[in-house]
């Protein structure tokens, strides 16, 4: 298959323009205009963020500032080829850290995107923020970094995030049953992939993979 990469970049640019007026945090040296959405932006983490690890660290376990500093130093040893790139998810309106993201495999052929919102937010708000982060991160990885595939796992009850993934043309490839624990029950984990149309796949291989 053949195609043209770049539509996602236009999508990102549109978001940047719309938010320029309210994005105070854009003046910060770590802000990233090309990763700014309607609700949130993604940016690199710094040692100053250690005190807010409860927002950007994945999961419900507590992380104090000392441990967060150690984690941040360990996660930032190679600016050119990080094993895993951790990002802060920042609310555009006020610059507060409201979640995080991680990318494994950036600058390689395939990438795994993971986004999450701070545990103190209500589930619907977390879903909205994650959806916005997906809208800006997937085009960045697929179209600018030219990853061949971007993989994203989404709980089946995250309706906004699923909608964002599908709006971006991501393909639902797999369902892992009952893989996410929720209060009082469990939900499936859906795996979506953005397949880069800029890559050319020989026709016979496409047929064998169908």
């Amino acid at each position: 298959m053949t195609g043209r990469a770049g539509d996602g970049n236009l999508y990102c640019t549109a978001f940047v323009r719309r938010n320029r007026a309210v994005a105070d945090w854009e003046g910060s040296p770590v802000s990233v205009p090309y990763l700014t959405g309607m609700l949130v932006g993604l940016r690199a983490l710094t040692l100053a963020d250690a005190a807010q690890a409860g927002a950007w660290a994945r999961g419900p376990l507590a992380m104090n500032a000392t441990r967060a500093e150690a984690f941040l130093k360990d996660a930032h040893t190679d600016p050119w080829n990080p094993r895993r790139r951790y990002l802060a998810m920042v609310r555009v309106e006020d610059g507060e850290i409201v979640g995080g993201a991680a990318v494994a495999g950036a600058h390689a052929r395939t990438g795994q995107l993971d986004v999450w919102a701070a545990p103190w937010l209500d589930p619907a708000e977390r879903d909205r923020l994650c959806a916005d982060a997906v809208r800006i991160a997937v085009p960045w990885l697929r179209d600018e970094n030219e990853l061949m595939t971007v993989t994203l796992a989404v709980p089946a009850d995250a309706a906004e995030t699923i909608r964002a993934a599908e709006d971006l043309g991501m393909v639902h490839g797999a369902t892992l049953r009952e893989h996410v624990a929720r209060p009082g029950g469990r939900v499936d984990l859906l795996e979506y992939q953005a397949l880069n149309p800029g890559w050319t796949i020989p026709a016979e291989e496409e047929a064998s993979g169908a």
Partner: protein
Amino acid sequence: MRNPLVVGSRVYLRALETNDAETDAAQANAETETFMYRGRAPASPLAFARWIEEDGKHPMPSEIHLAVCLRDGDRYIGAVSLHHVDYLNRTAETGSGLADGFRNQGFGTEAKMLLLEYAFDRLHLHAIHSHVFEHNTRSAAALRKQGYRYAGRRKWDDVKGGVYRDGLLFDLLREEWLAAREAWRATLPADVRGKGLGRDREPTP
């Protein structure tokens, strides 16, 4: 048996020891198959020793690698693993590998059943998944035999034979594993069925 963790009729699982590194390297260097991964590479015991040493440092590890040993003679013949163990959502990914010369004799299935017993009944995981490349039809067939259900496809996952290949995902719930274990037990000779894994027993606390 040496430091057993889960015991079956012919094999048992134990923690990996640093002095297993020599065997690990020897097994890797003697590998005859190339279909499982991108390709083979010379292995040093130094890397395995370091890996095992690091592996043992974590009290709640996200990666659990267990040695598969023969009950008869304690020979270390391969390893089974839980990857990405998630203690909050209670999930993990399984993996396994036996040394050349010990495949297709039922040791792998028994080791995998012991690993799943460890995962479901000792770690109390709720759901398991596994990933194989689509060209690895042998492992996909083994997973189905162990009760795993096909969960979907990961496109363009790796390269094999000069073309991009998909990965296949499988998942497994405890009830499905129990049913598969019963079906597997029924295929065993009666004298084997009564030993180790064949015994009906309460989950270990």
